[in-house]
């Protein structure tokens, strides 16, 4: 393996170039392949020793190693002792089982590496085989099918007619006492009243302040009108004092 050790001199610090490997498993696979082509026949113990020897050598050279390489080394050292010591039936899984799993992992990685290489060696589109360089292209002409029903048509026309119909402005019937109503009411109540009566007594009973104000205004006008016609007298002590009416 020493020939794959690439040593670089950076600022007096020796760094082990392990960029060539994609992690410890990859490195183990590379080592395994130096043993045998058929991974099923390799010696895991020999592989472990090879790996540990590599790590030892790297340490002796004071090379920096990524943590996962050291973790793998520790695990393999433990596995090695397990494989060499007399079997302890209490240990589960057994070192042999772990060794077998490591071998299975190496086989699987190797299989995918070969698969990738075989894929890349195929006749690849754009490298070995070529599609048509200047295809005319297929066109999809979108043709709109308009969706509208007779109802849509009718209601649309209704909206147009409604929108453009002459507009009648209708003032909403606010609750008011019209002058005519006030005249009628004040005249009638004046016929019943005997003496000076305050104008508020002529107003209809209501909690609606708007109606009350309207009634007051129209009743006041009605009183003025009746006074003008000579049918009523008005009396007020001073400005803003209560207004009194009396039949003439």
């Amino acid at each position: 393996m020493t020939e794959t050790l690439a040593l670089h001199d950076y600022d007096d610090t020796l760094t082990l170039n392990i960029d060539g490997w994609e992690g410890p498993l990859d490195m183990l696979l590379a080592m395994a392949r130096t043993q045998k082509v058929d991974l099923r026949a390799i010696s895991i113990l020999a592989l472990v020793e090879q790996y540990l020897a590599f790590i030892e050598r790297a340490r002796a050279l004071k090379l920096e190693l990524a943590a996962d390489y050291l973790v793998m080394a520790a695990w393999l050292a433990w596995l090695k002792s397990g494989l060499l010591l007399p079997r302890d039936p209490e240990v589960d899984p057994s070192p042999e089982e772990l060794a077998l799993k490591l071998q299975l992992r190496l086989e699987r990685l190797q299989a995918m590496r070969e698969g990738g290489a075989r894929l890349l060696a195929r006749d690849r589109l754009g490298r070995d085989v070529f599609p048509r360089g200047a295809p005319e292209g297929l066109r999809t002409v979108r043709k709109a099918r308009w969706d509208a029903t007779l109802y849509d048509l009718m209601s649309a026309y209704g909206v147009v007619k409604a929108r453009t119909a002459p507009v009648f402005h209708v003032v909403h019937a606010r609750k008011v006492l019209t002058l005519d109503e006030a005249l009628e009411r004040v005249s009638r109540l004046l016929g019943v009243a005997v003496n000076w009566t305050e104008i508020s007594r002529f107003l209809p009973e209501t909690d609606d302040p708007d109606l009350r104000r309207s009634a007051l205004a129209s009743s006041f006008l009605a009183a003025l009108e009746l006074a003008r016609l000579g049918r009523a007298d008005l009396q007020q002590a001073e400005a803003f004092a209560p207004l009194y009416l009396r039949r003439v």
Partner: protein
Amino acid sequence: MSDSAHDPAFDIARTVEAVLFAAEAPLTINEIAAYVGEGVDIRAALRTLAAQYEGRGVHLVERGGRWHFQTAPDLAFVLRREREETRKLSRAAIETLAIIAYHEPVSRAEIEAIRGVQISSGTLDVLMAAGWVKPAGRREVPGRPLIYVTTPEFLAHFGLASRRDLPGIEDLRAAGLLDPVDTAFDSLHLESADESAYVEGSEGEL
């Protein structure tokens, strides 16, 4: 196509075929030769290929000294596919269509007068593309505006035997389709006003 797989002329022809197929633009004989090799009778290979492709879905053609494959002209109609998409008419389009149907023949200015809104140039185009409206001459007034009418396809689409089958104004009124929008809005407004008045009133009573 041919069993002369080991005929040198066939090998040249299939190489030229591949070169022209993969080319991104028509190629001159010199350009083809740059791929296939000098001293090769490209012209003969092109003649062979052109004859082989004759009558097929793809032709080998020469245009101004450059060669390329193109799909057979008689199959051009196949290469475009029509796909129908159902789409809803815009409000402007359906209103315009309704005005034309009820008032035809009408000019654009008349449609706008009835709608009370201008119509964009695309609106009539859409209706004409749908096949429901067509121009029907010009009105003999100043400016000689185009006038529009509905088509038999319009009647067919809306299930009408004739324009007389269009519901009349009275039918529309009866169906509530003439209710002025403003009135409807006002009644809504009043209702909510009453509601809030009621709420205030009840609070007052507390």
